[in-house]
């Protein structure tokens, strides 16, 4: 079994049984192997972000199971899910979602501080990660002092902080111009070559071209893959 993640018969229904019931995901199955780089494509409202959140232990499905390294995660309590997010999942968001009052370094330290590492240990590793994403000169800058591309580099560094099993990226180039977007894609390709697994929700055809595997989703169903 070399699938690190297995999604089985996932359904997500908002407001079930009510007049505004919304079926976002319908019987979704998906298997992810270690080292993959998957692009998840689909029009807006197709349920791709919801699927990403469900895989990332952020959002409980209405029905179905998600196995992460064989563990049926939605049988766990909320705080246990948080521990899985902490250890096994790295998120990269379209809106970056960095904390404005913290420097780039402190933002990258945060997942390690939450995981109980000392300030010194967290800082050492955060520094290395930021140097790896070529932000070694920007350690003590606050998010408002950084460009879009730099912000996304910081959030990729943050996603890698606790050596995750998988990096889940939601439209990582959605807020960037083409050139900067290309740099972020190249960074992710480079990281994938180092062994990191990526699942990227995107509209960006460039990402689609770079990905080893493409999954299309429409109206809550997976079309191919």
């Amino acid at each position, binding site marked *: 079994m070399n699938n690190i993640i297995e999604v089985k018969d996932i359904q997500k229904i908002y407001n079930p049984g009510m007049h505004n019931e919304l079926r976002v995901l319908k019987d979704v199955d998906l298997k992810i192997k270690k080292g993959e780089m998957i692009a998840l494509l689909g029009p807006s409202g197709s349920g791709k972000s919801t699927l990403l959140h469900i895989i990332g232990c952020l959002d409980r499905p209405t029905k179905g199971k998600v196995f992460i390294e064989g563990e049926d995660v939605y049988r766990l309590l909320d705080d246990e899910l948080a*521990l899985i997010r902490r250890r096994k999942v790295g*998120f990269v968001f379209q809106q970056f*979602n960095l904390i404005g009052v913290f420097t780039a370094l402190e933002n990258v330290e945060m997942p390690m501080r*939450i995981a109980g590492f000392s300030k010194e240990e967290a800082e050492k590793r955060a520094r290395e990660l930021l140097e790896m994403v070529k932000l070694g000169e920007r350690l003590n800058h606050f998010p408002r002092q950084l460009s879009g591309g730099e912000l996304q580099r910081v959030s990729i560094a943050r996603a890698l902080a606790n050596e995750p099993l998988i990096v889940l990226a939601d439209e990582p180039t959605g807020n960037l111009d083409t050139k900067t977007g290309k740099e972020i894609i190249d960074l992710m390709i480079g990281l994938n070559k180092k062994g990191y697994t990526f699942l990227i929700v995107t509209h960006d055809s460039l990402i689609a071209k770079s990905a080893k595997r493409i999954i299309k989703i429409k109206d809550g169903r997976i079309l191919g893959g």
Partner: protein
Amino acid sequence: MIDLALKNIFRQKTRTALTITGILIGIGAVVALGSISEGIYTQITEELQFMGGTIMVYSKGSSGMMTGFEGSEITEEDVEEFEDFSGIKEVVPYVMRMGEIEIGQGLTTMTIGVDPKDVDFFKDRGVELESGREIIEGDTYQVLIGYEYAERNGLEVGDSIELKKTSFEVIGIIESTDDDIDNSIIVPIDTMMDVYNMDNYKALFITPEDVSKVDVVAEDLKSSFEDFEFVTSTDIVQQMSTIVDMIRFFTIGISSIAAVVGGLGVMNTMIMSVLERRREIGIMKAIGATNKYVLTQILIESVTISLIGGLIGILIGGLGSYSLRFISAGLATAKVTINLVFGGLLFAVSLGLVGGLYPAWKAAKLDPIEAIRYE
């Protein structure tokens, strides 16, 4: 987590400073006002220590120690009768006169007459000399004076003072005892009765043979001598503790209201802070913070605020109580006890905990997906 908490609470410096001030005023008031009742209590117990193991005797109808046993008359024959009573070891006669209130000082000087042969009785009860010598048998116009009385009047051993137009020589100064003795003049009892035209003693201190049976002996005496009051320290403690408890209830009770209002300030600040940081808290949860982590983080922040307020409050309250002692020239004795300090700290911490609980719970149950979407 503490470094993060400190960083977070000082993001809004003015708001945090105001919240801290709220707690500070409350806890400061608890300590300052509470120290007054503690001071009164300590003063009483210290005075009682003097009578520990003894029975104070004065005539029925006299108003007792507080008014200098005004109207109490005990004859030499009475003393002999007490001395013959079973279980009695020693009877120490005592006369006392409240002096005139000195304008601007608010202090009363007491003149106390003691028998030179009873000097050991007073020495046993912690009365020690700072300088000079004790009164000995044969002394007549020689006096000991209290520490504060000496300080105030610039008196030293060898100087003379005047009582009832009679000159006395100061032969010793008594070490400060922080009670009435500091403002007393101690005169050989025979001379004092002569100068003040007293025929009888004002009060007696009776020491039983077995000090642990003092209350039993006092009961025996009460049933045998109907014309006298017999008071033990136990009796006084019982009477005074009701009054002290009332003072304590009012001072600490009223100031606690101020502290609770300060606690509401903490709650308000934390609610605001959690609202402003919704998104950030959502991000923290998305990257792996448990509900417990978020809850603890917010609680640490609110307790840090209230603890800082509490610490400064105790400091300021303590200074306030100390200065009260100066302003009132020792009349109002305020005492900051260990209990007050720890009570104040504990109170501050619990205000922070209680005030932080609701905002912390709100923060912990935030849905990270919604919080992240929220712009």
